[in-house]
Each structure stands twice: as C-alpha cells, then as structure tokens.
C-alpha cells in the first residue's frame, strides 16, 4: 500500500509543468483504495496588502468553506457527507492548501466538488459575513483568550518579523479584517489564485489518466496575476527583546526565537536540523532542553527547539506539510511554567543553547542524533496524504527533506553540525514572549538583572543540578529595561 522511503528517494521531485504553468505531482499506489488530492497555492498571509491583514486567509476560507456557483456551502456539505470526505483548508505565510482523501469509488465526485470550490466560488455575502466574523472571533476570543501557547507563538512572529510581510498572524488582525469587504476578496482571488502559483498533487489508487485530466480543469484560472513581492530580510535586532503578555493563567507560556537565513533549499539546513533535534526534538525525550528542564527539574511538560516554522499535524508528533516559507526562524518553545520559575526557565533555555553554540554538539550526542534521525524520518510520511505533502514541498523547495537527510546523514560529521551552529544559531538577539500571570514581577527582575532562582517543592534534587542552577539563575542576558515591554493579551493583533 505504501511506497517505501527508498523508492521515494529514488524518484526525484515529480512536479512537471503540463497544463501551462501548473505543476503536477503524482504518487501512484495502485493497491491503495484511497486517493488524496492536494491543491497547493503559493499564496499566503505574506500577500496581504497593508491595512488588509487577513485578506489571503479570508479568501482561502471563502474557497475552502464557502458556496460555489452550483451549490451553497450547505449543499456542498450534503454532497460530501455520504463519501465521508472533507475539504481541509489551511495555510500560512506563503501557501494555502485545499486537500481531501476519499475512497477511490468516490474520486470523480470528490474531484468535481473540490475543483468547483476553487474555480467557481460564489462569494456570497452570507458566507462572507460568517467567515469574516469567525476570523475576527478567532483572534479576539480564541487566540487572545483560549490558548496561551499559540498566543505566545503568534506574538513571537510579530516580534521577529515586525514590519515584514510575515509579521501578523495568518488569520489577520482586527483592523485588517474589519476593513475588508467582499470586493476585496474577489479582487484578491482573481489576482492571486493563478496557474503559476498552483501545484496539483494526486496520490493513491487513482486511474492513470486522472492527474492530467484533473489538473487540466485548473487551466481556466488566469495564467498569472499579481507578482509575488520579494521579501526583504526581517528587521535586525540588537540585543534581546522581551514581550510580556499579561493574562490570567496558571502557567507562563514562553516562546523565543530569531530569524535565520537558511531553508530546506540550503545545504546548511541539514546539519542545522541535526543541531535542532539534539537541542529539542519535538515531543520526544531526546532533546537537551527536555532533559534539563522537565526530566531533571520538573519545570514543565515539554521544551523543544526548531529551525523552521513548525505546526503539528493534528494529534500526531509530526509537522504539517505544505506550509513552506521563503524565510525561516530558530524557535524555542517552553510549555507553561509556574510563574515563579519563568525567569529561571528563560535563562536555562538560553544557557543550554549557548553551551551548544560555544562547545558544539558533543560527539556522542551527534552520533545518537544522527542514528535517531536516520530511522525517525521513515515515520514522517506513513500515508499517501503525507507522502504527497512531502513531495509537493520538495517541488517548492527544490529539495525533498526526507531524501536529503537520508542521503546526507551517513556522511555528515560533527564538524559540519558545529559549523552550521556557529553560522546560524545565536541567543544575542532573541525575541522572547511570555504569556501569563505575575509578569510584572518577572519584568522587574529581568530589568534589574536580578537572579531568578528556581525554588523546588520536591526533594533530593541532585547536587550537580543544584550547582548548575546557581549558574543559570544569574546567567547574564543581553537585555536592558527599555527592551522589556508589558502588554495585555487583549491588546495584541489589533493592527
């Protein structure tokens, strides 16, 4: 049912421009009863015009959750129901995706429904009202009030990318969304959802003729439209910036990061990915941060590090595919910590990262991380939908991350990783966001450069840990009072 990873590595990026500029990616699995369709448009929040932040996402929502000329959205849902199919629409700064998986019995019917969503959207005022209100509520109610960790991550994005096309949450801002009218959406659609921005992916047990015929439907889209704006580099930062977001919470959610000039397209990405895995592989006990902060000290539930934007795919351990970015950032995620320990946690994360930068990756850690990744990457694309996602990302980046890691890891050396660490990782200009309670006290301690000790309410902490704690609690930060700001959660993402 599945192609092995070896077979996938042997097949190069499968994108071919066939129906005009549309790129088509095929992954046949003749024995599979399922077929996945993915439509990936290289259109994202970075395309939002100034003052209309949220326009790309709202347009995508009108396509993915709105009526077509032929059917109201209610009728679309009715048509999808017997085949147990969904149209899953999601996106990020540089791409929006419309995807679904169906039994091959229902392929033609589902393909028609999906194509209609993109090609003949109705742009009804009822759908617009509903989806615009949902987007506003997503920011003002859900993001500001129901999810401290996502709030922290989104706020971090506004710091790292201040004044940059990536510098607002993908759903938009309150002012941006409020300013939008239906005509804005129609114009954005016409100018951006064009053939030259589209990749069509098909995976599974489909008839051989299907992909070409399906892709050909999209030849009615304009060949091209508004040019993609070149991205200026993100703003440079000198020293650390700390944003404390005050809200009622039990723990302080902490995210920190800084832009890095490397993506999957670059050779340096691969040794850097090894460093990130060593420092904090997502939701494993492999990472240095997890071992030091959760395992040894019981500080919180988890601590992770990344060298590209990471959104978890549902309840799995693995990242969403098809959210490629032209620019990436280094990020550390510390899950909520009791407020009394937040200052210590910030210092500890920076202490461990600085150790990695200064001393390089230990030889034993490098060997173990490499061995881990060589096996772990076999789990990243277990089903047709995810394999297709990775194949489309390969077409966009120019490199297939799984195939590249499989090829490069055996010959990679500790020196390669150390070189990448020294070139790209730094804690000198981190943006740090803390969401939660008692942030005024934290601000005071950080501004005064005071120690922020950890106080254990558990017994028998080992002596070596206590000794290290003394170093961490006073670890110097490149931070001064003017760079510490307190805001209320309800003030974020206004414009």
């Amino acid at each position, binding site marked *: 049912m599945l192609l092995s990873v070896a077979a996938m590595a042997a097949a190069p990026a499968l994108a071919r421009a066939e129906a005009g500029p549309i790129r088509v990616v095929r992954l046949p699995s003749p024995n599979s009863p399922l077929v996945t369709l993915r439509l990936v448009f290289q259109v994202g929040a970075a395309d939002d015009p100034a003052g209309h932040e949220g326009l790309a996402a709202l347009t995508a929502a009108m396509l993915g959750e709105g009526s077509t000329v032929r059917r109201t959205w209610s009728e679309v849902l009715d048509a999808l129901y017997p085949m147990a199919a969904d149209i899953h629409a999601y996106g990020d700064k540089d791409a929006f995706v419309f995807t679904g998986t169906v039994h091959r019995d229902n392929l033609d019917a589902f393909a028609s429904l999906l194509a209609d969503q993109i090609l003949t959207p109705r742009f009804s005022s009822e759908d617009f009202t509903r989806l615009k209100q949902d987007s506003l509520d997503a920011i003002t109610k859900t993001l500001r009030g129901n999810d401290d960790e996502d709030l922290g991550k989104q706020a971090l994005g506004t710091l790292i990318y201040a004044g940059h096309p990536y510098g607002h949450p993908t759903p938009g801002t309150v002012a941006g969304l409020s300013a939008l009218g239906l005509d804005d959406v129609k114009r954005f659609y016409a100018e951006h959802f064009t053939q030259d921005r589209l990749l069509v992916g098909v995976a599974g047990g489909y008839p051989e003729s299907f992909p070409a015929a399906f892709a050909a439907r999209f030849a009615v889209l304009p060949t091209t439209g508004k040019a993609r704006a070149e991205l200026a580099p993100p703003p440079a930062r000198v020293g650390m910036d700390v944003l404390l977001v005050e809200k009622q919470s039990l723990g302080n959610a902490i995210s920190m990061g800084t832009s890095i000039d490397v993506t999957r397209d670059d050779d340096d990405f691969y040794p850097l990915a090894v460093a990130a895995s060593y420092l904090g592989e997502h939701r494993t006990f492999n990472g240095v941060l997890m071992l030091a902060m959760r395992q040894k000290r019981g500080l919180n539930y988890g601590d992770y590090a990344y060298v590209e934007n990471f959104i978890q795919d549902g309840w799995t351990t693995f990242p969403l595919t098809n959210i490629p970015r032209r620019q990436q950032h280094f990020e550390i995620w510390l899950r909520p910590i009791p407020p009394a320990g937040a200052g210590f946690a910030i210092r500890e994360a920076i202490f461990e990262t600085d150790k990695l930068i200064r001393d390089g990756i230990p030889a034993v850690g490098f060997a173990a991380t490499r061995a881990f990744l060589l096996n772990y990457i*076999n789990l990243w694309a*277990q089903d047709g939908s995810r394999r297709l996602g990775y194949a489309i990302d390969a077409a966009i980046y120019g490199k297939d991350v799984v195939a590249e890691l499989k090829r490069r890891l055996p010959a990679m050396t500790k020196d390669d990783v150390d070189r990448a660490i020294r070139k790209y990782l730094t804690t000198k200009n981190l943006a740090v966001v803390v969401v939660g309670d008692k942030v005024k006290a934290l601000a005071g301690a950080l501004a005064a450069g005071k120690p922020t000790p950890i106080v254990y309410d558990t017994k028998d902490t080992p002596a070596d840990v206590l000794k290290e704690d003394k170093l961490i609690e006073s670890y110097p930060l490149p931070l001064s009072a003017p760079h510490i700001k307190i805001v*209320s959660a309800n003030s974020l993402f206004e414009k």
Partner: protein
Amino acid sequence: MTAEAKAFPFPTVETTLPNGLRVFVVHYDSPGLVAYYSIVRTGSRNEVEPGKSGFAHFFEHMMFRGTRQFSTEKYNAEIKAMGADSNAFTSDDMTVYHILAGASALPTIVNIEADRFQHLEYTESEFQKESRAVLGEYNKGASDPLQPMVETLYENAFQAHTYKHTTIGFLRDIVDMPNQFPYSRQFFDRYYRPDNVLLLVVGDVTSEQVMPLVEKHYGGWSAGPARPAIPVEPPQQHERRATVAWKGASLPMLLIGFHAPAFSTTSIDGVALEVLSELVFAERSPLYRRLVLDEQKVEHIDGSCDRHVDPNLFTILARVKDSKDLAYVEKVIYQEIARIAAEGMSAKTLAEVVSHTRYAFAGQLATADKVALIGAEFLALDGRLSAIDDTFALLAKVSPADVKRVAGKYFTPENRTVVTLQPEAAEAAEADSVPEAPEVQ
C-alpha cells in the same frame, strides 16, 4: 465498498500466555514498520480512593522513569536509537503505551517494554520531579476554557461513579502528588499485571516473529490481586446546571451531558445513538445549517457519545457567538432532538449515515499506527478485536425506529447536566492563586 466487507479486514492471530497475557498480532502492509501497543485496562475510572484522582495518568508518566536494567537514560537511548515515535495516553478506561518504529527493532521493543511492565523502579526524588511535569500538563491545558467546563460537567453529572473526575484529575490532587510515593507502588502492583494488560502488534510482522519474543520476556509475569470495584452511578433524577467563570476573552460556551449506555456489542442503543449524533450534529444536518450557516449564532457545534466501559455521557458542545444566544441555542438543540423523537428518520437518511460511518472508518485505517490506535480502544473496552466488526454488524441492524426510540429515551431534562461559560469583562485582574503546594514530606 460492499456491505459484506469487514470493517477490520486485516489478518489477526491471537495468543494467550499461561499467565493470562493476551497478544494480538495484526499483519498490515506497512513495509518495514511496526506499531507495538501495550494496553492497560485501567484508567481514571479506577481511581476509587479519595485524593487519588489523576493517578492512572500520573502513573503513565512514571512508566518512563526506569527499571534496574534500563534506567530512564538507557530506555530513552534505546528509543532514540531505533528512531521511534513513542508515547502514551490515559483516558477514563485505559492507559495505552505505544511505540512506532522499524520492524527490525522488534526484539529490543519487546525486551524494554516487558522489562518496565514487570520491573519498574524509580526513586522518590524522580517521582516528585515527574509530579511537577504532570502539574505542567494541567497548566498547559488550563488556558483552554474547555478544561474547566469538562471538569465541571463530570463533577456534576456523576455523584458516585469515578467518571466524576477527569483523567488528569482534580488540581488539588495533582498538587499533592509528590506525597503519594507509597500509593504509586501499590498502583503498579494492582494494575500492571498480565491479566489486565493486552499487547497489540500491527505492521510488517508475523505471529511467528512476535510470540517467541513475548513468551521469553513476559512469560515470568504473574497475575495480580483482586482489584477494587467501581461504584455504580445511580440514575439522575433531575436536571443539574452549573456555570464556569472565565476571566479574559472567550466565545461563550455551552456543554451538555446526557447519561448514556456503556459500550456494548449486543445492545443496539449505543450504535443508535451514534446514528443520532450524525443526524443531529453532522455538518450537513438541519441543526448545523440553521445555527452555523443560516442564523450564524454558533461558531462550532458537535455532539457524540464516546465509547466507555461503564455508562458515561452523550456530550454536546457549542461555541456561541453572543452570550445572549446561549439559552436560545440550548433550546434549539433540544427541539431538534425532540423532533427526531417524534418524527424519526427516513430509511434513506439512515443508509447515508451508515455509508458515511463505514467510509469514514475505512479512511482511518491508513497506517499501522492508526490501525493499532483503533484496535487498542476496542481491546481495552471489550478484550476482543472482533468487537470492531461486531459493532459494525450492530450498526447494520439499526432501524429508524431504534433512532427514534433513543432520541426519546436518553434526552430528557432529568437526565441532563448543563454547563455554561461566559467571559467576564476583560480587566487586568489579580490572578486566583494556584493552591500553595503542601509541604513535601
């Protein structure tokens, strides 16, 4: 897809060891991969002693804290070397430990899993540190208003049964966990026994490969002592209502629970309720169309009855756009269920629901890990993988009259508990303090 096709079509071999350990090996076409699931038929439902809520989940954490042979560090190193996706979860009725890795790692997996299930050993210091990771897990969920809403719903809907507390437990019990080291050893002794654990191995493996390893590593494990009985919940006699205060932003929320039957492969009410949930709450339903699309008073609505060992709840959640519409939305939900109780459903609609359910289930069987996850749930509830096909056989027997009957039987005012949440005015407020951690002994 034919009606005769099995819902769980994979070749399965079941073996029982003399000590009672039952092993299910499912061959699945995932070249080079295996999913190894250890299913403990114990969850938060088994936390019968006061002050011990959350312990099944806490113990799940402790299972990663080492043995004499495999310290935490050594265990983690083995998992890392095989490049495994390894984790665990606890729910009301089960604790499931799962490893997804290359099939070539099977001998190591069986060795380290058998070892920790029989010889777990940790210090009190490690125990206490891990208790604070559990507190961290509670804290990370606390910014989601659904956490206090679910706590409040179950605390009110149940008076005697241990479903009264959520799986993560009451915060007061979590804060006190560092003081429960002796109880943790009793918990392991009581529940981590071959007669209470099932093994499910799915993937590029055969029983001939798995069983010699299992016999070697688990053969010396001995069955456990008698386990405490779970109190029976008396019938609810009148509606219960509660509100949750929420400082900060949120959409207003409505959470309703109706007492519902336990999982069964013989009584038809459970699958009839599953059909009802689709009829009332699927995105193509009249209710969804009215509240979400036409009137646009609701941002999200869903309703379903999760499968449980004992009678649990059919729960309905709505996120409402304006507080003033909470009562209206509640009323409309009841009206729709009452309409089905009065009018029933057509055979055509029933056929569409059954088709949808079968296709949706088939779509979930896309990886060895997903197949194992589904199998684990049914094994924990019923002890048999054949329970999956039994359930679908029962689904095929549901009639419109069954759906009409359950709509009338279970959705009465005296059978429901209702929780609402409305955000307070957004002021920068002094935090409620987390209960001070008691002095650790």
